[in-house]
């Protein structure tokens, strides 16, 4: 069941790949706006880069949250998924995994290139990637709670931002903290460990909340 569901979501994403690309371009454009708004001074850019990259990643991944359940909700597939003879928890995990592969991995891959715009060193770029790799699954899984709660509502996209962004704050702090630490020449290890802990805790608890939310929204 799990494998089939992930496989299905990957195929669907491939056939609608324009949507996925839009998220990546959004990420690129948002990060590129900051130097234009702030000025090309290298030192300044280098010091704001960790925050900029992470905030842009947060916004980009939030933009794609509607896709986790939205289409399935509209065509009735979601109720069938809730009715499958497996726990809804697994359905949620499969969909979150697919969302992460489709919408977050591209961000992780493209982030170092954007980091070059800000004059980050190689060492720092590595931290950017690792921190995103640990942090983005948290964004997917916590975001899925908001996505499930707002299914079928008016202005669901804005609402999802209001619900989810405050919950993203610890990830933002730990993730950009790790990058900042590398920029200033200290070890990012503590931050990365915190990110990993957040990842584990949210992977255990958040799918449970999401499946409760799905059942409420499908009813």
């Amino acid at each position, binding site marked *: 069941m799990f494998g089939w569901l992930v496989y299905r979501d990957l195929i669907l994403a491939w056939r609608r790949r324009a949507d996925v690309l839009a998220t990546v371009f959004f990420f690129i454009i948002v990060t590129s706006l900051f130097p234009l708004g702030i000025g090309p001074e290298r030192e300044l850019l280098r010091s704001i880069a960790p925050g900029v990259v992470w905030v842009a990643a947060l916004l980009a991944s939030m933009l794609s949250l509607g896709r986790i359940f939205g289409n399935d909700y509209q065509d009735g597939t979601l109720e069938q998924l809730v009715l499958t003879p497996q726990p809804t928890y697994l359905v949620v995990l499969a969909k979150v995994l697919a969302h992460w592969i489709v919408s977050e991995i591209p961000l992780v891959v493209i982030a170092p290139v954007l980091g070059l715009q800000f004059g980050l060193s190689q060492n720092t770029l590595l931290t950017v990637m690792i921190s995103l790799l640990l942090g983005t699954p948290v964004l997917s899984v916590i975001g899925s*709670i908001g996505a499930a709660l707002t299914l079928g509502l008016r202005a669901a996209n804005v609402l999802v931002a*209001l619900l989810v962004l405050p919950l993203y704050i610890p990830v933002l702090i730990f993730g950009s*903290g790790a990058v900042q630490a590398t920029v200033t020449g200290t070890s990012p290890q503590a931050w990365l460990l915190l990110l990993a802990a957040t990842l584990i805790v949210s992977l255990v608890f958040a799918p449970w*909340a999401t499946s409760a939310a799905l059942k409420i929204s499908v009813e």
Partner: protein
Amino acid sequence: MSNRKINWYKYAAPANFYPLAGKMIPLFAVPSAILFILGMYVGFFVAPTDFQQGESYRILFIHVPAAWVGMFLYVMMAIYAGIGWAFNARLASMMAQAISTTGAIFTFISLVTGSLWGRPAWGVWWVWDARLTSTLILMFLYIGFISLQSSIDDVRRADRAGAVLALVGVINVPIIYFSVQWWNSLHQGATISKNSFKMAPSMATAMFLLLGACWLYSIAVVLARVRYIIREREQEAPWMAEAVA
């Protein structure tokens, strides 16, 4: 047989709670007003002027109780919402909805007073210190809860979706609080701590009096608000016609 035992289940029905709440409101509102006057008196006339911050520190008599009550109400809201969801208890969900507005208002008051206090203390209207930042995030959580509930038309779904969000929020509050604390300790900006002055006993008295006032006030207002919500939701129930008449 035992008349002394209160039947709690009876009062869990909105029809029975509605008149009871009406009777209870003055029991909390009057003491709240008394404590407020007492607290204000002690705060302005008894408590001494702080040698470092002068008179401006007195805003903390409002700021601190508002912050505490705002945070406490979020937890209460989550508990009520959770009970309403788990046991399908309508009244508990209505309580959660009533608390959310009051809690958001207290959090807002605490933000505004914090900012007003910051002006003389730090020379700027806003400082990203850990406590002010956490309060701001708490405000965001309240806004999320209120806007989620108000954008769902079906009352039952609104209650239950709100419950999931409130419970997720309440689990997150300590994590957020911790992360903000950590973030703040690493990016040291303003170094003047609000706690740098010694609190005279009369200052503590004023603060606790006002804390009591805020707390009793929230109970009274929540009861009044829950009566409105009951009236709105149960307008078609037969008992409502009698109660209003």
